[in-house]
């Protein structure tokens, strides 16, 4: 697919969010107020925006976390309504969220967790489970490229991992699960310069024709490595501005106040 095709009618739509309104289930607090966003297969979209604007909420709602109520709108993955699915069905359909705050699971080995996850998805798709041997080979290879050592694979999921290790672990999961639509929520925050490069390389290695990315970040630094095709600005529960990579540079330079003043 040529670059210019991305803006044309020919692009394959991976994720299509329309007029998404979300409030908290237990409170009358509205967080998303009509999000419209389309990510094409093969493209990387970035979302930036002030703290509390609803970026993480969007990623949670897309992956099916409890506690939110969708009051309007839809979100389709390759034409399938995500919002009707259980979280695990969304995962099996190809959605992946790299968490802003990865969760610790005491007593569950990282390796066991990954294998259970991979096999659960394969099973849901009617594919055969990977054998222990094949899995080990696969993990070793992917872990090495992210400089994750064997010791970390044996430890319980995220328990005692440093902030950066947790984020790399998320990317490792993504690399193993090979989702179609990857959402990265501030995967760059807490990473040192070298780790950022590793993570970016990990993401770039996964970039392909059949895969879409939604990268939530506050910093241009990540986008230097992962060159986005499209940049969105989210504010107050809405995408208020969409542009090319230059938009991220503008945010970096001038902050949000001026940009938002321009759109409101």
């Amino acid at each position, binding site marked *: 697919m040529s670059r210019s095709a991305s803006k044309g009618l020919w692009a394959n739509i991976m994720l299509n969010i329309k007029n998404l309104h979300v409030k908290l289930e237990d409170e009358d607090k509205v967080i998303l107020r009509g999000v419209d966003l389309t990510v094409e297969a093969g493209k990387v979209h970035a979302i930036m925006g002030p703290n509390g604007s609803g970026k993480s909420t969007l990623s949670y709602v897309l992956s099916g976390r409890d506690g939110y109520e969708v009051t309007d709108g839809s979100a389709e993955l390759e034409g399938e309504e995500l919002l009707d699915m259980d979280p*695990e069905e969304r995962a099996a359909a190809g959605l*992946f*969220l790299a*968490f802003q705050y990865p969760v*610790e699971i005491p007593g*569950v080995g990282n390796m066991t967790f990954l294998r*259970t996850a991979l096999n659960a998805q394969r099973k849901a798709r009617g594919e055969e489970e990977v054998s*222990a041997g094949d899995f080990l080979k696969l993990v070793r290879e992917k872990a090495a490229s992210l400089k994750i050592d064997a010791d970390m694979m044996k430890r319980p999921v995220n328990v005692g991992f440093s902030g950066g290790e947790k984020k790399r672990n998320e990317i490792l999961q993504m690399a193993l699960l090979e989702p179609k639509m990857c959402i990265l929520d501030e995967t760059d925050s807490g990473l040192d310069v070298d780790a950022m490069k590793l993570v970016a390389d990990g993401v770039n290695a996964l970039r392909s024709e059949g895969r879409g990315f939604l990268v939530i970040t506050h910093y241009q630094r990540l986008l230097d490595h992962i060159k986005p095709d499209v940049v969105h600005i989210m504010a107050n529960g809405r995408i208020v501005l969409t542009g090319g990579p230059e938009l991220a540079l503008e945010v970096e330079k001038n902050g949000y106040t001026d940009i938002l003043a321009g759109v409101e």
Partner: protein
Amino acid sequence: MALEENLSELEVREGVDRETIETVHAMSGKYKHGWETEIEMEFAPKGLNEDIVRLISAKNDEPEWLTEWRLAAYRRWVEMTEPTWAMVDYPEIDYQDIYYYAKPKSMEVKPKSLDEVDPKLLATYAKLGIPLKEQALLAGVEGAEPARPVAVDAVFDSVSVGTTFQAELAKAGVIFCSISEAVREHPELVKKYLGSVVPQSDNFFATLNAAVFSDGSFVYIPEGVKCPMELSTYFRINAENTGQFERTLIVAEKGSYVSYLEGCTAPKRDTNQLHAAVVELVILEDAEIKYSTVQNWFPGDENGKGGIYNFVTKRADCRGDRAKVMWTQVETGSAITWKYPSCILRGNESQGEFYSIAIANNAQQADTGTKMIHLGKNTRSRIVSKGISAGKAQNTYRGQVTMHPKAQNSRNYTQCDSLLIGDQCGAHTVPYIEVKNNSSRVEHEATTSKVDDDQLFYCRSRGMDEEEAVALVVNGFCKEVLQALPMEFAMEAQALVAISLEGSVG
């Protein structure tokens, strides 16, 4: 249309109830060992009296001293009252409405070898995944590790069907047989040790057992011998309205070692069944016993109908210096569990450990824990208890740690964690601590938490369904105890943890 709206409104409003109902539906049929073997049985008449005691004794060809021992127990039992201090609630048991002896007719003449055992019985154990052929691996136990043989004694209702690897064990001097066989073949050993750890009149259920015990396993490890393979007993209750009263006795002579495992299952029935077992472990100088239990008796249905009443007395006596015992239990079944595997740390520097997973789901009630009685100097004990409650279940950890005046410089460490799934279940911790000298130390830590929604969501967002997610998180919670099990059984126990919690969420 209007009706539909009403229904869905009702569903929303009564979401919790609906969930409960769905849970129930999901749960029923999940007990994997609930089928029954159709086999012709011979029963002793229902009810309990001296004649029944004599009959059981006669069926086992017992010497007179044992018949008298049983009768003495019976006479004591008649005078005793059922204990009520445990946090379990059940209708009164009618002890005259139970069969105390049930034996497959095909076992009337004891088969000389396993080849002669009734194919129906062999098929029963095959279906349960218990190998009665002398093969290396338990069926259903996955694992790339090289297979080690496991010797099995299979007890079906009141009788032992057969014991594997006896010849090979005999080469090492190890005796592994049913207790009735031991009474016949090794009366001097049985006479010396039977009732020496759990006295005849220890408690209501132990005394009942002393009067009517029918079969169980006997293990003797001679001085200096490391038992060449894992030993195990598989208890199956099959007949209806029948109690199972097994008695297990393990003697580890000086410097010996054995690892022993028991497993238990029963068919699904809507009546309750009584199981009152006694296990005695005698551990001499420098000897060590590892005793593991995977208890999966039928837990009853979602409303608490049916299921096994499991009243068990288990005790280890570390008689010699530096004797060691380790109890590991995975208690997933039974409607009622009343069980406190204990350690008497008599020898100096002797050690007792207790690792426990107790799962109570639906209407199950578990009151379980341990006693660590420190009598010798420099004795050590460690308790790790993981209680999981789901549905409407009640789960109590009850533990006693006693440091006697002479138990100088002794230590206990207790860690007691409870996990709650849902908000209709309960977890209780009842520690009794007595320290009667100044140089000993007792540490007790307890936590109670709810299964973490973020953890479940994290797992699900990676593709696991809710039950798989719960199983994974709970297995993580229990890890320390699962690791204490022999490798051959850890996988099975892990799967069992998952199965017992099926339907506990969503």
